[in-house]
């Protein structure tokens, strides 16, 4: 317990990094979930558009993931400082 307290008092960097990376993961989870849900809906409605929807969904998922990874990189930087 005193160990944890020591780490917290000595530097806030790891704490901020952890919270930041966690929030980014929450955001990315919501984003990718929405994309996946809507893509599944679209495919159920129009099965013939499967390929177009899949391609678009992958691209948008990569966008969302990219933003989450920006946050991960910043979290890494915060942890190092």
């Amino acid at each position, binding site marked *: 317990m005193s160990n944890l307290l020591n780490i917290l008092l000595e530097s806030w960097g790891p704490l901020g990094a952890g919270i930041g990376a966690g929030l980014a993961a929450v955001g990315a989870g919501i984003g990718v979930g929405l994309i996946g849900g809507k893509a599944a809906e679209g495919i159920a409605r129009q099965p013939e558009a499967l390929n177009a929807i899949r391609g678009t969904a992958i691209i948008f998922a990569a966008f969302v*993931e990219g933003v989450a990874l*920006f946050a*991960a990189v910043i979290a*890494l930087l915060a942890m190092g400082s």
Partner: protein
Amino acid sequence: MDRINLKNRILTAVFWVFLGAFSAFAQHSDPNPHSEPTPTEETGEHKEHSKEGKFDVMHHIADDYSFPLAGDYYVWLPLIIFEPGKGFDVFLSKELHNPDPTTGLIRGKYYYNHGKLFIVEGGHLQLDDKGHPIGKHSAKLTDIGSSHVFYDISITKNTFGLLLSVVLLLVIFISVARAYKKRGTDTAPRGLQNAMESIILFVKNDIAIPFIGEKKYAKFLPYLLTIFFFIWINNLLGLIPIFPGGANVSGNIAFTFVLATLSLLLVFIFGKKHFWGHILWYPGVNVPLKIFLAVLELVSVVSKPFALMIRLFANITAGHILIMSIIGMTFMVKSLIGGVSIGIVTSLFSALMFVLELLVGAIQAYIFTLLTAQMIGAAVEEGHEEHKEHAAAH
């Protein structure tokens, strides 16, 4: 059917042997050959140990002068140091690991610490008040013209990985091109040519034509194919954990920076009047708004390749860190549960991560190429033609 069954069995056997070997390795070997003896529970040494562990992961994704194989075995790569006024100095990175025991220096003037190389003056090591050695350091972009630098153009891990990927691409595509020359484009493709043809056609039909347009895609297709295969092969080589691969090339920000800059240059060079008109002097609005929009649009032109750069770098780096962390978990938890059981768990997890990274490597190459095609497509679009096309469609 029998053949497939046999193949499956052999593969499964190899997998379990690998698992067992890895678990045994986890039980017996020390994760960090440089670390001090077992840390005690005292706070100071414990912290030291956790710091070393973190450093180790970052160390494996960073660039280095030699390839670690296992334990104390390395593949040595040449260092090429250019010191202004004194000329080139070429030596093997093996010497970095055997510094002079009394002075701590290599070849009488180099000092090597935590992946950084320094040249110290006067033949003995002096530290300044920040703990950096006094002398020359490797030149950065901001140091050009300074006299306290040397230029480090060594064949490092990343340089080696880059050269290897170039050689592989040349071998693959020259043989494919020869196959087309020999057999012509009318006969069915065979072997390597067959494998490559489907991917090349995918880049052409699903990336270049939809985003750049039927008329203009041909000029940009070679560039799109080049970056696609270059990024992909570097992603794949980065996933090979042992010597020829294992350099984290596409997870290096300099690599992605150069690729994104090339894409931006294409936009600058081939951008049409229509494109620049809509950026610098937006038609149909009043002058203050025109100026505001010009600033906004210029930022957006530069921010797109910036996002490309960060996306590729962060994806690949995050993947490597994840795999390293899962493998590193073996060494952290082994004293609690026992090396073999945690070794099996982490091996399975890291195998899954490797499969995921194979997918991510291909998707990131696809995304980078696609967004580049989109940028180029927006830049070369001609306003009037589009109106005509629309009119024809109606």
